[in-house]
């Protein structure tokens, strides 16, 4: 007994209470200002050695009250907030929101606008997946992939800038049409992009897919089984990587998605490797959809001919009196939306992005609810990270693609 006999050494005899150090349950706080936390996420883990036994996530560090603003701003004024939600694919959010308001008012957009919007939605899907794969690889140390893929994001930015003047935060759609029609060099540039982008995918596949280090770091990590994916209500590439076949573009086709041919990538295990493969395949399929949209893009007006929403051309606003008054009324009073409610969802790059608008008539919404896919994904992250080590949790977080703007709104 005593200090000589090491097997029966009592730590409290040291005069210090060291029993806490021998407690295998250590509480660690990762975030909210942490390099691997994309933005403002906070994960509190209880670890045993280096294995995570329990995790609790805290959000709300980027809550900007967008839903409350939806009740205080008119429908057009709120378009600027939609891009700031999923800022990696802002065009997708704009289009999804304007689609919802148009559904509420029973407006059909023109053919040209419809095909153009589909093309832009697929372009935003490509750039969002580029960010996800590149940052996921960067978190694990594969910097080359980040440099390679970011070049293509800049190419896409140049095209988007020629369309609406801004690279990242676009606000390029309006209720009933788009703010500008595409410039003349947009289609040739898009054709060039579509021809050359698959080479980037081939390069990244060559760097990562057969790479022993990548496979060891991503296979079996952050696994989410099929039943758990359904129980936690996740959507998007993570749901498909877990094996559930649900894609709103194919199952509930909006616009002309039932006329374009594309495949839906389904994974098996729901780990980081599967999510990476699903995203790479989705980028390839998006390229295919864009090619079909380019072929089928018709001529014609980009604005629907509905006097409730049609924003007149500037040349008329400056020269004709009635058009000036019409323009004034649309922007100062807002468009008059009939009372009713609608829930309209698109298959965004991250999952099902839905807008639920309750309108009591008038220019402002009564309730503007955004169903953000990252919210459910982060909830499932708490569950999927149990049993992994801390570096594995970092790579799992990168693959789930949590965008804090969308999570906290």
């Amino acid at each position: 007994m005593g200090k000589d006999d090491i097997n029966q050494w009592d730590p409290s005899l040291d005069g210090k209470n060291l029993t806490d150090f021998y407690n295998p349950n250590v509480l660690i706080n990762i975030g909210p200002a942490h390099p691997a936390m994309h933005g403002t996420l906070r994960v509190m883990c209880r670890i045993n050695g280096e294995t995570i036994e329990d995790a609790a996530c805290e959000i709300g560090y980027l809550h900007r009250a967008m839903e409350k603003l939806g009740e205080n701003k008119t429908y057009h004024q709120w378009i600027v907030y939609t891009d700031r939600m999923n800022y990696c694919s802002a065009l997708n959010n704009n289009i999804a929101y304007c689609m919802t308001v148009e559904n509420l008012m029973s407006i059909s957009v023109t053919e040209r606008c419809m095909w153009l919007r589909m093309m832009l939605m697929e372009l935003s899907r490509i750039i969002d997946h580029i960010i996800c794969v590149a940052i996921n690889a960067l978190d694990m140390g594969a910097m080359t992939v980040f440099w390679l893929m970011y070049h293509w994001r800049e190419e896409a930015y140049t095209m988007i800038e020629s369309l609406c003047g801004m690279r990242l935060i676009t606000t390029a759609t309006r209720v009933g049409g788009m703010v500008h029609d595409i410039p003349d060099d947009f289609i040739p540039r898009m054709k060039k992009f579509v021809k050359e982008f698959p080479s980037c995918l081939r390069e990244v596949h060559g760097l990562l897919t057969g790479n022993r280090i990548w496979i060891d770091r991503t296979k079996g990590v952050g696994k989410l089984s099929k039943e758990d994916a359904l129980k936690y209500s996740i959507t998007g590439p993570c749901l498909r990587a877990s094996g559930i076949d649900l894609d709103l573009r194919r199952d509930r086709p909006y616009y002309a998605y039932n006329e374009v041919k594309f495949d839906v990538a389904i994974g098996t295990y729901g780990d980081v490797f599967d999510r990476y493969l699903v995203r790479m395949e989705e980028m390839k399929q998006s390229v295919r959809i864009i090619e079909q949209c380019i072929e089928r893009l018709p001529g014609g007006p980009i604005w629907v001919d509905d006097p409730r929403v049609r924003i007149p051309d500037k040349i008329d606003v400056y020269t004709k009196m009635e058009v000036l008054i019409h323009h004034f009324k649309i922007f100062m009073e807002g468009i008059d939306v009939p009372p009713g409610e609608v829930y309209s969802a698109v298959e965004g790059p991250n999952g099902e992005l839905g807008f639920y608008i309750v309108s009591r008539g008038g220019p402002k919404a009564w309730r503007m609810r955004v169903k953000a896919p990252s919210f459910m994904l982060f909830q499932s992250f708490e569950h999927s990270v149990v049993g992994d080590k801390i570096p594995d949790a970092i790579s799992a977080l990168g693959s789930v693609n949590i965008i804090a703007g969308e999570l906290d709104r």
Partner: protein
Amino acid sequence: MSKDGSAMIYPSLLAEAVKWARKNSLWPMPYGTSCCGIELMSTLSSTYDLSRFGAEVVRFSPRQADMLIVAGTITTKMAPVLRSIYEQILEPKWVISMGACASSGNGIFDTYSVLPGIDEIIPVDVYVPGCPPIPEGLIHAILHLQKVIEKNIERTPAVKPTYEDAMNAMTYSKCAQAAVVKSAYIVTKDGVAQNPAGQNPIDCNLGGNQNGKCCC
């Protein structure tokens, strides 16, 4: 060396050398919260290479960095985190407030949860306007910061909030002080209290009111 032992020429050359070294080797700590963070990543990547200007080594630990780039909206829940990160960076340190949200709270986000500008809690050297600023804008800001460092080696911004100022800013609500809108709660220096006078929204004529109630 002069008669009393003080070196006269060398300190000025030394000061110049130190200024040159500091401005060309700023180690940024990116504090990217929202959309500006993506433009910051674009600036750091190969097309708008920031490492041309010396700011290549991005250190995510505040103890190892000397320039804090706050890119994105800072909410009131995040503000103490930012303050504690700022305090951990050792002198000399500089702060770039990137984007409209960090500089002033961004007029579109004037809500109950957004901090109206990080200069309420930390001193800022360069503000970059834009939502988000294009990468050339951020590079312009870093070049401007290099000019600032060139002029004075000691940073003396006009208004340097002390710790007390920062704590007061974080507990004091400007909107409640302006008393534009009366609501069920009032926020004072001591905290949040129930307003027994009840809710009495004032009619404001900023167009498009619903049911005559205040829209803000």
